[in-house]
């Protein structure tokens, strides 16, 4: 029964993917050939470069930051340890707009340079924000917390005896990091990288604004511009293939390293003076660039354009965004819990790839999920209405595809991957032997849920809830397409204003997203803190 439900739910999650893949059955060869001759190569190379660039970037920044903040202590290191996750609240396209405004040719930075040094256009070189490189940097700045969080967990779990053993063999700190600490933490780092890469591949707002041709912008272009939804879906299918590769690589690299060592975390090394200051500066750079600076700029814009907003316009945006995000977070985590637990109980009959498939939705562009979800639900609604009309003379209308159900469904398809990462890792800490131990002590399965599973899973569950909440808050393309009448979110509003080049006006809803997102991130921080304080004591 649980198993049947498992496969049913998995099927529902994969429905949009199915719609996408089934489009392969009817290829429009002339259009495909045209794409191949012109832009397809660009799509592939840019998408791959983007994903790889973001993957490498978040791994380096996230892992280094986690390493520095767990191994060393200096003035402000505790604070920085928690602040580092703040960029999670910042949508990538918002930070893209902000930095474009700051760094573009006509922006204040370059203007200042030109005025000070009396340069003209062409006299000096300045990095072009609106490029593939710029997109990579933007996304790295807001996605590194994924790796940071997981790497931090992994590093604190590593026994200090490893470090001391290698020190006695004359291994330098750097060598220790690169040869031992990093490889041991590798599964966690790779998991974070995979999430960041999938998000990078699915992004639309940033690459569209920067004019970088990737698969997502190609999907939009082919669909809207050339009017061929089929071909657009086929491009989406190609994108999905790339994501399969990313996930497969992640799984493979995870297999090689089994266990993190048990043991006590070491006491951090105290850094003072110049070294301490330097480290503090270096560690504050990511959160400064990824959060503090954009927020300052957005705030100044928001303040100067505040008179343009009225409370009646603003309040419903906030309440609707929060409500949608809250309901979705709850439903998604429940779904992830159900999937993880069913896999745990029926390990034999449910293979690992089934769970991995459930994470597929994360890679599909929001707009593709939207269509993939709309078509079947719309079909169902029409059939339902026909049925009830024939039998009862009653037409309930589009109860699924015309209401928030379809939107929440689309969100769940997309974000169950995030929740699953956390429920899976959480469940892994509860060994089967612990279950058996409880039973041997007379505590049956139901009681064990409350006394053993729930307390141990609590940090993972809270993390999952908060992360999904923030992700839904930031979500854009699917919301644009699927929202019912008179439902508007902060993300949609900010996007419309920014695309209409009213960036300063977009600052208020953009900032609101960030502020609404900070609260869950802060709670997440508090959760991590409690979790780590418990485990930070020495024997």
């Amino acid at each position, binding site marked *: 029964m649980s198993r049947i439900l498992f496969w049913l739910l998995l099927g529902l999650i994969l429905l949009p993917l199915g719609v996408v893949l089934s489009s392969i059955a009817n290829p429009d060869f002339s259009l495909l050939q045209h794409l191949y001759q012109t832009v397809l190569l660009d799509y592939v190379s840019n998408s791959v470069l983007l994903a790889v660039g973001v993957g490498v970037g978040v791994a380096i920044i996230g892992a280094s930051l986690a390493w520095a903040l767990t191994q060393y202590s200096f003035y402000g290191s505790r604070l920085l340890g928690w602040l580092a996750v703040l960029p999670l609240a910042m949508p990538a396209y918002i930070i893209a707009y902000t930095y474009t405004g700051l760094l573009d040719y006509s922006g204040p930075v370059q203007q200042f340079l030109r005025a000070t040094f009396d340069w003209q256009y062409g006299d000096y070189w300045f990095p072009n924000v609106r490029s593939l490189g710029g997109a990579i940097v933007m996304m790295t700045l807001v996605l590194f917390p994924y790796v940071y969080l997981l790497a931090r967990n992994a590093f604190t779990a590593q026994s200090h005896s490893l470090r001391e053993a290698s020190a006695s063999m004359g291994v330098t700190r750097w060598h220790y990091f690169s040869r031992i600490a990093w490889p041991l933490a590798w599964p966690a780092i790779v998991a974070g990288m995979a999430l960041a890469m999938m998000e990078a591949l699915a992004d639309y707002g940033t690459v569209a604004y920067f004019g970088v041709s990737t698969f997502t912008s190609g999907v939009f272009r082919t669909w809207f511009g050339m009017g061929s939804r089929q071909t657009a879906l086929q491009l989406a299918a190609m994108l999905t293939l790339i994501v399969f590769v990313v996930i497969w690589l992640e799984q493979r690299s995870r297999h090689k390293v089994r266990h993190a060592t048990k043991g006590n975390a070491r006491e951090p090394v105290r850094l003072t003076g110049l070294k301490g200051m330097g480290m503090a500066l270096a560690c504050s750079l990511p959160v400064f660039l990824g959060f503090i600076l954009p927020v300052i700029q957005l705030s100044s814009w928001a303040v100067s354009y505040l008179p343009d907003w009225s409370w009646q316009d603003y309040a419903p945006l906030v309440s609707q965004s929060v409500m949608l995000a809250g309901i979705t977070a709850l439903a998604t985590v429940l779904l992830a819990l159900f999937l993880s637990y069913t896999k745990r109980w029926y390990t034999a009959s449910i293979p690992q790839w089934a769970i991995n498939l459930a994470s597929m939705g994360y890679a599909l562009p929001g707009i593709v999920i939207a269509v993939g979800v709309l078509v079947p639900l719309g079909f169902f609604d029409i059939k339902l209405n026909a049925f009830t009309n024939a039998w009862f003379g009653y037409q309930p209308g589009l109860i699924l595809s015309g209401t928030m159900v379809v939107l929440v469904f689309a969100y769940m398809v997309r974000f169950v991957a995030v929740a699953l990462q956390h429920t899976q890792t959480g469940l892994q800490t509860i060994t089967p032997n612990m279950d058996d131990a409880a039973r*041997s002590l*007379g505590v049956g399965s139901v009681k064990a849920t409350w006394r053993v599973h729930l307390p141990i899973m609590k940090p993972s569950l809270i993390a999952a809830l908060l992360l999904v909440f923030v992700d839904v808050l930031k979500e854009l393309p699917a919301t644009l397409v699927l929202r019912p009448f008179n439902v508007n979110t902060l993300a949609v509003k900010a996007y419309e204003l920014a695309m209409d080049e009213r960036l300063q006006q977009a600052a208020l809803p953009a900032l609101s997203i960030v502020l609404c997102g900070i609260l869950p991130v802060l709670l997440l921080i508090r959760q991590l803190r409690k979790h780590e304080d418990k485990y930070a*004591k020495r*024997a």
Partner: protein
Amino acid sequence: MLNVHDIALSYGTTPVLHSVNFSLLQGQIGCLLGPSGSGKTTLLRAIAGFARVDSGSIEINGQQVSSPATTLAAEKRGVGMVFQDYALFPHLTVEDNVAFGLFKANKVYQKQRVDECLDMTGLGKMHKRYPHELSGGQQQRVAIARALAPKPSLLLLDEPFSSLDVSLRDTLANDIRRVIKDEQITALLVTHDQKEAFAVADEIGVFADGVLQQWGDAGSLYHNPANRFVASFIGEGALVDFASLDKTVLVRPEVVSICAGGQYKGKVVSRYFRGDHFIYALTVEKEQGITLHTELLSCKGELADAVDVDESVSFDVDLNKVTVLER
């Protein structure tokens, strides 16, 4: 009080054990000994109630708890278990871990019993610690205290020594035996290390190739091995054919002695210091009426008569003291 009757077991779909029969009396400590993968842990889990039996039955205190048709749930058996990885609950303190199975009792009794068990296992001051703050040996003891707290009628231990330092093992072996005997409960442990088996258990079962090779106390196993496997598995020794005997015999080191003018000739390949004596490993010249089934023959020697490595020696074998093998 534990009766294992003609048990056959599978791990998943692979059969691992069959025709297993043994019993333990109340208060006895039994041990399942054998190489890794011989199905001992599966059997232990079946007794605990975590695995089904394919045929046969298991009885605890006269009540049938496992049979092909029915399996009494583990949480209802009153059988305590100590797991190889300790399986301590990371979110609970030591005292909460130990008290975990005492939820039916009132708080006063719980506190009292927890104190008792922690004292018993030498962890009197560790109540408020968390598992990750303890050393391996301490975690082991908490696991034992936790399993003992609800006063189970049978205590099962899965490879209790495998993750510990060698120096700790002897102490722990003694402590486990003392604690179990003090509590007057029956216990069954699984290990692949015969030293521990001998140190802790009253009755030992040797497992190999899916069957119980022999069940008995340490002395019987050592001096009267039922077959070749047990003979070569228990203690040290070599299987040898002598021209003057018609059966293969087990030659223990203590029945071989190096002496001048001995009957056989050989060469010392290595020498091991064992505290109060040496053990020599000898190669034996061919065509002497002595054929080894192995490469080397172990020989015990006094410290005073030390022989160097690579020396050629002559030695005698006391044929009256060799162990004759039926099969």
